[in-house]
């Protein structure tokens, strides 16, 4: 590691030097530059401080990286129902493992999970390590962390990947802290160096900047990845690899936290909470035709909304209206159908992540905010789109 040294004798314009720091971590203390705790060691001052600042590397005791082998993926599940992020991580793990010629492991904790562990062998892992205990029936952070730690101690994987789900985002830090190792949250890109150092890239500062992070002298290297970032491999009909039960003394799973019950989360209602929205505008000619919009929303597992004129016509309730006089929405996907895009409407949806706009008029103002401006008739496009989605779903 290292530290910053200030060569006070080289300081000329103290005020100008202080301004270099993007974090405001330098202070003028009686004509001397002092670096305070806001410093993030970004080393901008070293680059631009005209030799006043120096970063001194200190020798560290190198760990033996060859003692840690393999890429491990945590299997997230509730009652044996495996969260799909698990397969996406296995896909990435296989890619990384191939580069360094090491195995892929899955770590599966729970009760009565052996059958389910077999399923994972269809996705190309070398070993599924299981810990099947009644104390692991439901998620309890202390017992799960203990079982996870048992796996790491016995198998010593170089890399551990965990889905950035509500459970993964508490289990991974708990385990990382136990091993005093690094954990990088919500990675969007992962790669690996020949020496098994994991290259972790994640958005920082609200996504305005990307940061590339290494954990150069600690093992295991841990990272979480959100759902739907990586690609899951196709399930193979054949199985490969083996299931390996791990021993663990039940006395070690003695958490005093008690799970009193598990209930299904109520579906959040309201167009503000929808991840996917299909919107009907005046291009929809009759009230009956709204069923097209509804059906598209349904096959996408989303919700449907509308513009103000449709509410005024009494076709839909006001709570489905987007715009200044309605609701503001920010879904991951919005598909507007026959919406011209008034200023008031756009103000209520322009921060949506992906905007598809279908309209017959190539000059429609909605196209100014759309990522995909689809010039065409919703009556021709939407039914065909619904069919394609249904077919795709049946194949998959």
């Amino acid at each position, binding site marked *: *590691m290292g*530290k910053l040294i200030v060569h006070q004798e080289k300081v000329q314009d103290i005020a100008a030097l202080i301004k270099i720091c*993007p974090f*405001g*971590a330098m202070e003028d203390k009686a004509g001397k530059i*002092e670096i*305070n*705790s*806001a*410093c993030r*060691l*970004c080393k901008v001052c070293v*680059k631009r401080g005209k030799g006043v600042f120096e970063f001194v590397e200190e020798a560290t005791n190198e760990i033996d990286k060859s003692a840690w082998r393999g890429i491990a993926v945590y299997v997230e599940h*509730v009652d044996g129902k495996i*969260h799909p992020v698990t397969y996406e991580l296995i896909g990435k793990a296989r890619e990384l493992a191939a580069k360094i010629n090491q195995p892929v492991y899955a770590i599966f904790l729970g009760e009565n999970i052996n059958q389910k562990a077999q399923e994972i062998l269809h996705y190309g892992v070398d070993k599924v390590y299981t810990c099947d205990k009644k104390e692991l029936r*439901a*998620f*309890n952070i*202390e017992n799960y*962390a203990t079982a996870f730690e048992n796996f790491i101690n016995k198998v010593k994987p170089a890399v551990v990947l965990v889905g950035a789900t*509500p*459970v993964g*985002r*508490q289990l*991974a*830090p*708990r385990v990382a*802290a136990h091993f005093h190792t*690094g*954990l990088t*949250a919500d990675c969007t890109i992962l790669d690996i160096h020949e020496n098994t150092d994991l290259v*972790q890239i994640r*958005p920082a*500062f*609200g996504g*305005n900047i*990307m940061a*590339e*992070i290494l*954990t150069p002298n600690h093992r295991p290297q841990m990272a979480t990845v959100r759902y*739907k970032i990586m690609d899951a491999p196709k399930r193979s009909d054949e199985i490969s690899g083996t299931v390996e039960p791990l021993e663990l003394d039940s006395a070690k799973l003695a958490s*005093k*936290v*008690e*799970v*009193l019950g*598990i209930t299904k*989360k109520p579906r959040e209602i309201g167009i503000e909470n929808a991840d996917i929205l299909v919107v009907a505008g005046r291009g929809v000619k009759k009230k009956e035709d709204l069923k097209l919009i509804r059906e598209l929303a349904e096959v996408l597992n989303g919700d449907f909304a509308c513009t103000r004129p449709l509410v005024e016509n009494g076709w839909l309730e006001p709570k489905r209206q987007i715009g200044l006089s309605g609701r503001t929405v920010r879904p*991951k*996907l919005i598909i507007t159908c026959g919406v011209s895009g008034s200023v008031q409407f756009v103000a209520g949806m322009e921060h949506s992540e*992906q905007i598809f706009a279908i309209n017959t008029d*190539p000059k429609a103002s909605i196209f100014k905010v759309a*990522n995909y*401006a*689809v010039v065409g008739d919703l009556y021709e496009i*939407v039914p*065909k789109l619904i069919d*394609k*989605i249904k077919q795709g779903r049946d*194949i998959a």
Partner: protein
Amino acid sequence: MEILVCIKQVPSSNKVEVDSATGVLKRNSAYAKMNPYDLFALETGLRLREKYGGSVSVLTMGPPQAATILYEAFAMGADKGALITDRKFGGSDVLATSYTLSQGIRKFGKFDIIICGLQTTDGDTAQVGPEVSEMLGIPCVCNVRAIDKVEDDNIIVDMEMSEDIEKLQVPFPCLITVQKDIYEPRLPSYKKQKATANREISRYSLNDMEDKNEKHYGLDGSPTCVQRIFPPTSDKVQEMWTGSGEDLSARIYDALKKMKFTA
């Protein structure tokens, strides 16, 4: 009940840019406000105190000016405050931050429950809470969406999972992180602000900690290293598509599939 709420000062805006020519971070926004998620944690602490008695302490770590958010917390009703500040803590990643906080908490007092916000708006990792709990050797529950009740030596909470809600009984001492909207945060009171403007706060530096080994803090205590920062490649597309209904529906379908909105 002794309650501790961990809070953090964050930049008022996340607008930062990288100068693409020099690769230098351009950052103008000052560290100016309490992390918005922490308001929910503080509100939770205040409500627990109102219902079950006890006191609410607040703790933060940062540069000297981070003390201002402790006074914001006092204006909302917190009782005691402590600031962990030392240049030697600079450059801390999640692990080093959590370790420093856990050391500071040991110094600050004995607490039945530690409450953290779900995440911060600058780091955005949601990892510090659970790491602190591990270092203190106490149980934790993240993503708490509701508090059912407090009994003599435990608390019953609802934890949100991907599709389920788990109800847990957790013995004290413990740590929870609360979701936004668990309670509506109150506004600071002018009267309280006046009354607490000169309240003493505790300040801890490395020398006050039980573990004074410099190597365990700041950059040295951080296993992760930022290699470089770079501007994201803009994925903002603006395309206009024309064609037959069949063509257009196929293009939309392919795009949705690629973005994983459908199978």
